[in-house]
């Protein structure tokens, strides 16, 4: 045999060396943390936020208060600009702050949903979640600084309650709310006023966790399970972890709380604290940067097209069930002449005479759409096509848009009324006593629509029917621990891909070409058949290996 030459040796070792050196990047740094995590931890190291005043020592807060506006007046004595600031925010106007108010985009305008549809005619009930006092009807004075409710967001005793049907006012004396049978008490004004501080999860949660008239009805990623969540439910808010309050990420300036408002994205720029220390912390990138994973890890290559939430929130409503379907057309059934409700397997109503049929679900897989942070919507003025499911709102974005990512959504579907002649969605007056024209008092849809549309300043032809609608909520809370984030094959799969509905681009593992696959296998099996036939030929003609030998 030939001796091993130096040349051979050199080639071999060099080749081997390079092979393993070249691709070793992905295997290095295993022990280290992902940089996105390290940086976020670093940025939020100090949990102690210092303050320089004790409100219980302020004499002005020790006077005898009898109503909310009196407290507000006291607050404004020192915080002179607070009401003026707050008046400009969406929490006060319930209108899209970035659109001309004449367009009436927002809850207080003509925007609708497929829950209780609209506030018009239903104010005293809906505005129990307004950070103000006394929005009972259109005559509410939005310019009155004393009508601002400072306490609902700032009091820290946890005892302050607005009456569910009190137009934003607490009760002056103990009162039972018929809707839930609970008794509501007047606040101890001095105690609550002296307790004020930065808003906690509870301050935000009393409205945002209970939107749509009950726990977990609306969002799917916001419900009372986030009052005291564990890390498994939310890595940021978990009391056994970072224990963030809402405002830790919803950075606030001049009472403007960061977050999406209708078609305005929560952030216009993707910047991290490293690039701008005063950046709003509303995006994941604010703290985690745009390449948060370990160097060489594939998820870093996904951040330009896939929202962090898509992989890191595998399911929403993981503790409390959320509502997925609301069919108003079934409302109005009675038992022995009386309205009734039926509880379903998840302990939630599946029927309510006042509202119709419901479907609830727990641990729901989101639906995914291209999303640039903006959500467009129709209003009660816009014409619809009742021949198909009406999208009341929808995420804006597409694959070609650099600012769009594939993002997770809860889609709430249902059936709701529309005007057969005008082809618009209808607003119903729901809340009110017998004789008021409200559906829950008089049980007549026509008068309820007449009243609701009139209060909204819109026309109702008198003819109505039901149409299927959908309403989206971006899913961004309930970020799961990293071990629970999605595996590749949840999307990169030919069967049951979570992104099966998103087409127009090639995704490895999900997509292919039937023609090439068929032609490929045909070639492979053709070759196999060919050599088998040849081999059989050799066996039968010769018996030996093709060469005759002695």
């Amino acid at each position, binding site marked *: *045999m*030939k001796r*091993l*030459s130096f*040349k*051979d040796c050199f*080639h*071999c070792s*060099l*080749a081997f060396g*390079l*092979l*393993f050196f*070249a*691709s070793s990047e*992905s295997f290095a740094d295993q022990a280290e943390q992902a940089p996105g995590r390290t940086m976020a931890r670093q940025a939020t190291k100090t949990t102690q936020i210092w303050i320089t005043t004790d409100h219980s020592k302020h004499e002005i807060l020790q006077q005898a208060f009898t109503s909310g506006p009196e407290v507000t007046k006291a607050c404004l004595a020192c915080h002179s600009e607070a009401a003026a600031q707050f008046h400009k925010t969406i929490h006060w106007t319930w209108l899209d702050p970035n659109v001309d108010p004449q367009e009436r985009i927002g809850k207080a305008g003509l925007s609708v949903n497929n829950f209780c549809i609209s506030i018009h005619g239903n104010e005293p009930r809906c505005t129990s979640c307004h950070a103000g006092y006394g929005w009972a009807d259109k005559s509410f004075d939005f310019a009155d600084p004393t009508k601002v409710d400072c306490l609902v967001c700032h009091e820290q005793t946890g005892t302050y309650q607005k009456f569910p049907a009190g137009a934003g006012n607490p009760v002056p004396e103990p009162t039972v709310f018929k809707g839930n049978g609970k008794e509501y008490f007047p606040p101890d004004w001095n105690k609550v006023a002296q307790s004020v501080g930065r808003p906690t999860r509870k301050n935000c949660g009393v409205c945002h966790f209970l939107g749509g008239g009950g726990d977990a009805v609306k969002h799917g990623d916001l419900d009372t399970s986030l009052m005291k969540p564990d890390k498994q439910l939310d890595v940021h808010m978990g009391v056994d972890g970072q224990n963030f309050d809402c405002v830790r990420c919803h950075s606030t300036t001049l009472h403007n709380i960061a977050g999406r408002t209708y078609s305005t994205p929560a952030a216009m720029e993707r910047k991290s604290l490293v690039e701008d220390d005063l950046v709003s912390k509303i995006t994941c990138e604010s703290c985690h940067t745009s390449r948060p994973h370990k160097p060489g890890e*594939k998820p870093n*290559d996904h951040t*330009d097209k896939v929202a962090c939430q898509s992989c890191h929130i595998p399911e929403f409503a993981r503790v409390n069930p959320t509502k997925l379907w609301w069919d108003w057309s079934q409302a109005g059934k009675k038992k022995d002449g009386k309205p009734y409700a039926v509880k379903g397997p998840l302990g939630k109503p599946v029927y309510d005479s006042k509202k119709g049929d419901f479907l609830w679900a727990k641990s729901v897989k989101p639906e995914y759409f291209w999303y640039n942070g903006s959500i467009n919507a129709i209003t009660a003025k816009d014409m619809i096509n009742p021949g198909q499911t009406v999208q009341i709102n929808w995420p804006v974005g597409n694959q070609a848009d650099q600012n769009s990512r594939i993002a997770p959504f809860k889609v709430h579907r249902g059936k709701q009324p529309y005007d057969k002649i005008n082809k618009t969605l209808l607003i119903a007056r729901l809340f009110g006593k017998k004789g008021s024209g409200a559906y829950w008092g008089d049980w007549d849809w026509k008068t309820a629509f007449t009243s609701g549309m009139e209060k909204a300043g819109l026309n109702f032809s008198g003819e109505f029917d039901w149409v299927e609608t959908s309403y989206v909520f971006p899913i961004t809370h309930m970020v799961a621990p990293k071990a629970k984030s999605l*595996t*590749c*094959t949840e999307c*990169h*799969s*030919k069967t049951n891909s979570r992104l099966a509905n998103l087409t127009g*681009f*090639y995704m*490895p*593992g*999900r*997509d*292919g*070409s039937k023609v*090439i*696959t068929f*032609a*490929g*296998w045909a*070639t*492979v099996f*053709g*070759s*196999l058949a*060919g*050599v088998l036939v*040849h*081999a059989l*030929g*050799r066996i039968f*003609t*010769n018996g*030996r*290996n*093709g*060469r*005759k*030998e*002695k």
Partner: protein
Amino acid sequence: MGVNNNLKNMYLYTRFERFWHWLQTVLIIILLITGFETNGLYTSWGFENAVAVHNFVGISWLIAFAFFVFWIFTTGEWRQYVPTTKKMLLVVRYYLHGIFRGEPHPVPKRKDAKHNPLQRLTYLSLAAILLPVQMVTGFLYWGYNSWNAWGLSGFSLKAVAMVHLAGAFAILSFVIVHIYMITTGRTLFAHTRAMITGWEEVEDVASVEDWEVKTKAA
């Protein structure tokens, strides 16, 4: 006819060649297995593992291939791959006919002429077309996230992926035929043994013609 006792042990494949051959064997098998899973044709190792291994092995091959190119040109071995039509028909006739009748191979192996005309054509297509196409498309696929930076934003990932997939099927076909063809030597494992030890028993040295012999570089 064709009986020949004039066998001679000949050193045909150098250490590097053998190393390269078996390295490629391993790389190709791993790439086929992981590549088909990446495409979603079957599920076994897990998509994530398949992709990670495929990327690692693919990039490794790309680097190693540079050494092969260096070797083939510095040693002049590239001449073994120069295509020819001479005796091509004889070789085709042999595999379609003569082999069943126990005829000798019309183009026996020699150190300076390792490949018969059919092999020359096959290996040239493989080394100069199919494998480079796989390497280029594979590299592009791997570097998808950098396409904008490379000025390739107009490229279609689907096109790249599908050419790569078609190439994979072609290579798999080659592997099947290749594995079969190596059993057609003097004995079933004669060619396999040669690729392991470097030595093959070759008959009738005299029948090698001048044109088949690699001409020395000037």
